[in-house]
């Protein structure tokens, strides 16, 4: 996520040439001959201390801060992926560049020694670069899988004479000249390819370090693309990773944010050995001061401090020798039993969600007083039947089928369910049996929609939809999915045949309505969501109204089909009814709205008007009745077992 500290003055000349050459290949490169240059400080010799994981400070309220980079002048630059803002510096002296008109859900940030700021414009499938004032200078890429194109690139790193891009959706790394001219791709070995790499860094020897996120390892390549080293595998032992996300390097050290292990690891770049790690999931909601929660990126500052970005907590934390020693208990915190999300589905009495850290699916019975967990199943891996990262699920209570999109393995899995009778719910780890698993054309995120007897897959990266056939033959759907179809729903049409679709487009911030929708005019084909910050999922109630989750605003909205807002609720917090980066929503067969309160590791159930009904997790539930009784007796929150 950062450039080399060594300056290469000759490169500024060569990049001019590159810029000229690149025009033929890239449609919006506009790299000016003269541009503002950020003053460079002399590179400071860096010695990382052995106690580099001491906590120094926390900076809060940074939105979806998904990337951090150290600037040569000692400042920190951060990227808020929710708003598209780049923040230079910290505290009150920070300045903010509003790049939101150019960027859509950007995830990666880097800078060039000539002062340019490079952004992985993930949602627009490109890399853009700006001057120090935020003036857009150019970019390269564009949605696609051809040599020079990109698919949901999550990170960019600028070396002394080339730019490396984590081309996440294409499972590869792409190299470009500093001006944007395409060089070549690194894809790893054919029999062991990368899977959705999300982080990239370039060291002082121009070696390329890649967080091969969904292979749970770190790779190192020579500038020519030869693989030098592979470090780690799925696991929580030192040196192992669970979705390594961000990566940075300095003076032979590699710092990696180990997202699902909620920690930061330091590796020796020469040997690959794990030197140090710190973090550990919080005991209490929002606990910081060394506790780390879903870290996305890290940067090594010139003097050796390390800044860690945690979009989930909307904060950065700074670590270094001058800080306070972190309590590193051997014992994991109690209470954090399960992570919910960010995927959910419901049908009939079943509600299912996804436990990313265990690569396991939970199935609940909703028709009890509080939801009862019926099964937890799944193991991590890439072998048949094993699970990578699930990005969508669908369930059919009548046919007793469950489907999931496995973005890591580029497959759709189908299970048969053998549930217990409704009046005898019991836990059964063998309740689901894999029936079959069909390949998808591309690994990547996408939604899964049950449309009558059909199953429709929306490939978000490709903005295409497919009706999935059981034999693996997929037929394209006849719906224009616009630019960024992040979620969809389908209900049978009035004729019981042609389903009507509602597709949530995160780029346009609108719900596109397809088919005949009662209650809206033929002219009105969409529900505008421009007031929402970060709409990520939708669901429909029996009165046809549509519920939308606004993740960055921690809020739920309910709209009539004509666009009238009927209700809105939620605020950032950890109390019942409050939300923390909610990720998904479903509506059950009792018309109850179930919100995956992702950041609070729980689900919450609401009435259609937003009245809170209950909160539940894998092992406990809290109902309004209990809470009111508890409040009356002791004014304290209590929990109850879910059975």
């Amino acid at each position: 996520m950062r450039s080399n500290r060594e300056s290469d003055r000759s490169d500024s000349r060569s990049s001019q040439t590159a810029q000229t050459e690149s025009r033929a290949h890239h449609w919006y490169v506009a790299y000016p001959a003269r541009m503002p240059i950020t003053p460079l400080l002399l590179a400071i010799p860096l010695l990382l201390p052995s106690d580099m994981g001491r906590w120094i400070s926390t900076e809060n309220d940074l939105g979806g801060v998904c990337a951090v980079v150290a600037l040569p002048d000692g400042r920190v630059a951060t990227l808020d992926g929710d708003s598209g803002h780049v923040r230079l510096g910290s505290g009150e002296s920070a300045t903010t560049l509003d790049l939101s008109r150019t960027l859509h859900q950007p995830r990666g940030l880097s800078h060039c020694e000539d002062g340019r700021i490079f952004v992985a414009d993930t949602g627009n499938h490109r890399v853009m670069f700006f001057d120090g004032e935020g003036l857009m200078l150019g970019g390269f890429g564009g949605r696609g899988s051809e040599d020079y194109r990109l698919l949901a690139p999550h990170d960019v790193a600028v070396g002394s004479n080339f730019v490396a891009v984590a081309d996440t959706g294409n499972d590869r790394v792409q190299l470009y000249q500093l001006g944007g001219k395409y060089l070549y791709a690194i894809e790893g070995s054919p029999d062991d390819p990368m899977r959705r790499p999300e982080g990239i860094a370039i060291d002082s020897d121009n070696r390329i370090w890649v967080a091969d996120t969904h292979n749970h390892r770190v790779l190192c390549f020579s500038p020519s693309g030869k693989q030098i080293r592979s470090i780690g595998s799925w696991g929580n032992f030192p040196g192992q990773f669970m979705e390594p996300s961000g990566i940075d390097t300095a003076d032979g050290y590699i710092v990696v944010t180990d997202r699902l292990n909620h920690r930061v690891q330091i590796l020796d770049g020469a040997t690959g050995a794990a030197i140090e790690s710190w973090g550990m999931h919080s005991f209490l909601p929002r606990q910081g001061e060394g506790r780390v929660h879903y870290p996305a990126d890290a940067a090594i500052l010139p003097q050796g401090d390390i800044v860690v970005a945690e979009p989930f907590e909307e904060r950065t934390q700074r670590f270094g020798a001058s800080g306070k020693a972190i309590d590193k208990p051997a014992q994991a915190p109690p209470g954090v039993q399960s992570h919910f999300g960010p995927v959910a589905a419901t049908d009939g009495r079943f509600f299912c969600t996804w436990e990313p850290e265990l690569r396991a699916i939970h199935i609940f019975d909703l028709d009890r007083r509080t939801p009862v967990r019926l099964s937890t199943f799944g193991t991590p891996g890439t072998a048949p039947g094993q699970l990578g990262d699930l990005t969508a699920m669908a369930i059919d209570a009548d046919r007793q089928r469950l489907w999931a999109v496995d973005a890591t393995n580029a497959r759709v899995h189908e299970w048969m369910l053998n549930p217990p009778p409704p009046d005898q719910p019991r836990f059964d780890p063998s309740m689901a049996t894999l029936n079959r698993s069909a390949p998808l054309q591309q690994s990547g995120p996408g939604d899964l929609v049950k449309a009558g007897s059909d199953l429709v897959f929306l490939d978000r990266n490709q903005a295409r939809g497919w009706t999935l056939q059981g034999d693996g033959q997929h037929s394209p759907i006849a719906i224009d999915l616009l630019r960024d179809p992040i979620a969809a729903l389908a209900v049978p049409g009035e004729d019981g045949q042609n389903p009507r679709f509602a597709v949530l487009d995160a780029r346009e911030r609108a719900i596109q309505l397809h088919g005949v929708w009662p209650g809206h005019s033929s002219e009105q084909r969409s529900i505008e969501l421009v007031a929402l910050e970060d709409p990520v999922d939708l669901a429909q109630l029996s009165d046809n109204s549509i519920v939308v989750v606004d993740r960055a605003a921690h809020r739920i909205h309910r709209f009539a089909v004509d666009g009238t807002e009927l209700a809105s609720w939620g605020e950032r917090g950890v109390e019942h009814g409050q939300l923390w980066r909610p990720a998904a929503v479903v509506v059950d067969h009792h018309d109850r709205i179930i919100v995956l309160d992702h950041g609070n590791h729980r689900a919450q159930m609401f009435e259609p008007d937003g009245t809170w009904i209950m909160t539940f997790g894998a092992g406990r539930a809290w109902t309004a009745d209990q809470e009111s009784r508890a409040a009356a007796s002791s004014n304290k929150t209590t929990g109850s077992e879910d059975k």
Partner: protein
Amino acid sequence: MNRDMFTIAICCLLVAPTLAGELPAPIKRSALASSPVPPPPANPTNRVADDPAARQFGQALFFDPNLSSNKEVSCATCHDPALGFADGKPLAEGLKTGSINTPTVLGTAHHRWLFLDGRADTLWSQALGPIESDLEMGGARTDVVRYLAATPKLAEAYAAVFGPLPDVSNQQRFPDGARPGTPQWESMAEQDRASITQAYANLGKAIEAYERQLEPGESNFDRWVASIRSGTRDDAIMTGAAIRGFALFAGDAGCMQCHFGPMLSDLEFHDLGLPPSDPAAAPMPGRGAGFPLLRASEFRADGPWSDAPKSTKARRAASARIGPEHWGSFRTPSLRNVAATAPYMHSGQFARISDVLRFYNTLEGQVRRHHHAEAVLVPLELNASQLLDIEAFLDSLTGDRPPNSLCVPPEGFGIPKP
């Protein structure tokens, strides 16, 4: 036993339910499946595994401190016959203090994987590891072969089993201290390295031949099971507490999830989340580190020094799998002679069996590295008398000692008793 424990024990004897009458069928089946200990499985990768001459030669090597760099440490230093072929220490102490508790050699020929992290797949390849380990004996294979060549009795014994030793008299070709990883070793010709390594592998095979005789010995538990098998069950062979303890062990306590079969071990690897003996030290990877060492070992059962590289036995290492659950895991120990091999667990964390049982009973101090890892173990929550019963059962697994002739250096080699 303190006074409270004594009182509890007496109460148990008075009031605890007995297992008089027919044993429950599952308990009986478990008993029959746990005894007797069969002969060690054949090891075709060592053609002299059961050769009498190799046994005696191996026994001499086992007790000979001259294989070590300081001429003071032998296999028997840590595998002391007087201490159940272990050392009674939390951590092994050879030339230096190691990080692992010394496992007993008794019954070791029954194990599928050797070393607690499984870095070896045969007993002969295991025996070669400590000789060249700087923590243990610090030797070098070239020095060992030269020592044998210079010791007529040993050279004769070697020749009788394997043929003549290689001629290592040329110091230029066979420099002192040469072993893999040293400059001296790198300076040697490939052919010379091979001849030394062949001889070195043979030493391991002789040591295995000796160790295969070190069986756990018949225990009261075995005698009790034999009486069941013969149809004349004789509970007097065991105490009532031991029988109740076995019923718990094989029943509700679920110990047989891992401790089953005649060796009372599944021979595989598990991570119990044991509290580390040094909380400040980095966690021990166990099988996570042993597996790549096994894969890289030149002495693997399917490797160039094996006598049957295509055998079924040799397939085991090639088909072994490492998974995330194996990191931090160590081999399930056999419980045969467990009462004689304190302290316990891979780092000698627990001094007494009762400490081990207390851990399983409460899981106090258990380490879970991942913040929401699934609980593999749940606390047993047995009462004090039940714990005493299980301990009594474990006591009943102490077998007859091997014959004295196997517990001392063989006559005629001039090797002093340890």
